[in-house]
């Protein structure tokens, strides 16, 4: 399927958009919530890349983080719990001309929507996906999520959660056709922005797990990691991200990692002693489902008529 393209309109715009051109409403997240940091990084990305607000769609599911589209002055689709990805896929297949972002939480993506997540990785559609992983259900007031560390006390696990946490990076790296897997943390804005930007520029399903703080329900979860810079391990490579001199001064724990090395990526994803930050895996060669399914046929009334008449001929009696 081909869309009668509206791309030509884009060149008519010369105006430079500012941050406030992408801002909408006052975020109703808690003070200190990591969602604010992600919103800031993404709004900056939109401005720096000059994204047309009418050609940009933010899609989300349900949860604290899924309020995200309401705070963007673009098109937005605040969907239903767990289903942000298939909604975004429908938009993608219908509209190759749009820029599409997905905001999803750890409950939304890794629990109720887990089936869609696995298959979205495999479809490898051109979507930029942010997993806002605060390791707890926030909107429903503190229940353990699949990514809560074992022993997390919550309203459904008052004596501590029972299961080891699901590792979204390991899961994602286990799926055929995964093409971009990265991890960021909300408390290093510069690195967060660079990773968000790299994800946006990757053509394919860019999956960024963002460790974010929940000051309301798990205020101490990342306290130690934040106070000890060496707890964070910055990944760098000439084919991935470089570490700026500013960051390098603070974050000395650095690892050169080739983003095409999936085996090494899986080892890094499984680290328990450090928090890896950067691009774990990127493969630009994996085809996008929407390109694979492209028929190249511009749908016109005449094409439809001819196609139908040919079928009617088959069934004529």
């Amino acid at each position, binding site marked *: 399927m081909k869309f009668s393209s509206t791309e030509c309109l884009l060149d008519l715009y010369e105006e430079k958009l500012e941050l406030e051109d992408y801002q909408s409403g006052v975020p109703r997240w808690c003070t200190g919530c990591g969602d604010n940091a992600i919103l800031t990084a993404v709004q900056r990305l939109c401005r720096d890349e000059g994204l047309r607000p009418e050609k940009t769609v933010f899609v989300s599911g349900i949860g604290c983080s899924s309020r995200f589209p309401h705070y963007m002055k673009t098109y937005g689709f605040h969907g239903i719990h767990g289903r942000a990805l298939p909604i975004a896929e429908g938009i993608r297949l219908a509209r190759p001309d*749009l820029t599409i972002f997905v905001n999803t939480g750890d409950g939304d993506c890794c629990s109720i929507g887990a*089936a869609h997540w696995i*298959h979205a990785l495999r479809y490898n559609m051109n979507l930029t996906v942010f997993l806002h992983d605060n390791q707890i259900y926030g909107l429903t007031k503190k229940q353990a999520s699949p990514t809560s560390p074992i022993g997390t006390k919550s309203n459904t696990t008052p004596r501590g959660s029972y299961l080891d946490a699901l590792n979204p990076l390991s899961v994602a790296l286990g799926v055929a056709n995964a093409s971009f897997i990265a991890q960021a943390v909300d408390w290093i804005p510069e690195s967060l922005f660079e990773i968000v930007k790299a994800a946006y520029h990757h053509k394919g399903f860019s999956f960024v797990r963002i460790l974010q703080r929940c000051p309301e329900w798990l205020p101490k979860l990342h306290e130690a990691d934040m106070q000890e810079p060496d707890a964070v391990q910055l990944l760098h490579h000439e084919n991935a991200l470089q570490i700026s001199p500013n960051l390098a001064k603070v974050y000395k724990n650095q690892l050169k990692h080739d983003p095409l090395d999936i085996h090494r990526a899986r080892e890094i994803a499984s680290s328990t002693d450090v928090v890896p930050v950067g691009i774990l895996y990127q493969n630009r060669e994996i085809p996008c489902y929407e390109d694979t399914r492209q028929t190249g*046929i511009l749908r016109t009334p005449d094409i439809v008529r001819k196609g139908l008449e040919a079928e009617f001929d088959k069934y004529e009696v």
Partner: protein
Amino acid sequence: MSAQKTSKKTTGKSAGKSSAKAAGPAVTELKEHIVEIISDSGEGAQRCGQSLGSIAARMGNGIWTTEIIPAEIRPPARSVAGASGNRIRIGSGYITNGGDQTDLVVAFNEQVLLGRVRARELKPNCIILLESMWRTHNDINIAMAYKETYSRLVEAGYQVREVPMEQECLKLTPDAKRGKNMFALGMLCYLYSFDLQAARDQIALTFGKKAQTIIDANVVLLEAGHKWASENFDYRFCIPATPAKQAQIATNGNTALALGVMASGMELCAMYPITPATSASHYLSDVFEKVGGLVHQAEDEIAACAFAVGASYASKCTVTITSGPGYSLKQEAIGLAVMAEIPLVVVNVQRGGPSTGQPTKSEQGDLMTAIYGSHGDAPKVVMAPATIEECFYSMITARKIAESFNTVVVVLTDAMLATSQQPFARPQFNEAWLAPPIDQSAVPDGAKPYDWDATTGIARRFIPGQPGGMHTVTGLAHDRQSHVAYDPDINQEGLRARSLKIAALQKTLLPPEVVGDDKGDLLVVGWGSTKGAIEEAAAALRAEGKKVSSVHLRFLQPMQPGIKEILQRFKKVMTIETNWSDDPADEIIDETNRRYSALATLLRARYLVDVDCWTEVKGQPVKPSTIRRVLLDKLQK
């Protein structure tokens, strides 16, 4: 009605068919006949039956074919429950349903035949053409079972004729199992005086994608069957045809549905495999891309629906096709489309329920869930095509309604429509069927994404790409700006607008047509696939002087105007449906606890008319003779 009673004997000369030999047996002229071809699964009886139906249609006969499908892909060979095949009602005039009992059956073994006998699907004096190879089978148990069944069938009065199909086919092909169906087709073409060339043409079309050698091999078997029949049968039939004035196509309901999707201007179909809906998507997968469309097989039913919602939101209306269990799974996403006012077409090819139910069998059990499904008040349009032809046009109508009212349109068909074949007038393509290009114009300053019209509730929708239209759609209660509603009056306003749209659509609909007198003793109300059988039964009673009329509803939500007035003009009103209703004759059932059928419940609630119901959930099409009996009962009560 027995076709044989109304038949008359004529000679071969006057039968009028080119293939009728002057020296052949007398040709019995019939008004109609019901023919079955049954075999173990995989022996090709279905293809034989479908081909016979198409050949009959080519001759200008009215046909209705019904698939006989076992529940499993490969049930054990020679099992009573394993009959696979096709049932073709062939008539002189237009045929609207599968009819009553079978007049002639070709069976590849006696066990599958037993299943049909036990299900009382065969007429008492039915002609049975039975594969004779089992009589001399090496396995003594098989041979004994065959002989015993044969004797019992003869004793029961069936006209059993043994045919050495295997033996004859082995003369022409090493694998008789794969060719027997064409031999049988040849026999049937002889017996019904069908033009052999029409049969050859049909084979060429059926096997069109395969090599010429395969087509030739099948034609040889066809001709052999024809020749064998001409040398061995001392009877022959002719069902004079009254060819339609305009070109006809013959398809089943799912194919018609898929063609309708192609013609409707929809460009995407998202689905997940489920019986009996999948064949529509199979066909669509094959042909949709040729016209720039696309079928996406999603990871599950929920994803298929959410995908369709996303595609519709960003583009033209999208369709998702499913059956009962899948429909249940889609409910939340359907509610989202209702809430966010995103056009969406959902097809539910109903099967037996609840739960896994009877996947290959037909039922009308999902009407209530179609209307009331999804939590909260989620008003949507529910339509039900009643013929194969309507399956085609329903897609065009559904897409138009969905986009005009920014709402969900549920189209209910069922397994019976999905798998039955019937000829209908070849559609004349109309450009107006297609959707206009999506609106990418700038939105005027100050325009709101949900600027609900005070009278109709309709608002213009903004599609991504439209400058100035940026907003976030949400499943949360929202105001005209699509902002999350914190004011209690806003929720009230949103629900009102979405409900008004249904009323606005109703104002555009015409009253349903009453078949028969517009007043009388009994009115039968139906919906969906039962139309042909209901109308045939009512017509038969009218011919006997009974004051019975019928009305068939295409819109179940909203209901067409004028229905109450129609109901009130009859002394008694009842529905005939294939869903559950309690039998008032059951010991503990009375007026205070009787659960009425879906449509009867709706009619009673909406029109305050005492609507009775009769229903059956055997998974089979309801026979006109059964309905006739029920209506007579109701008249006499």
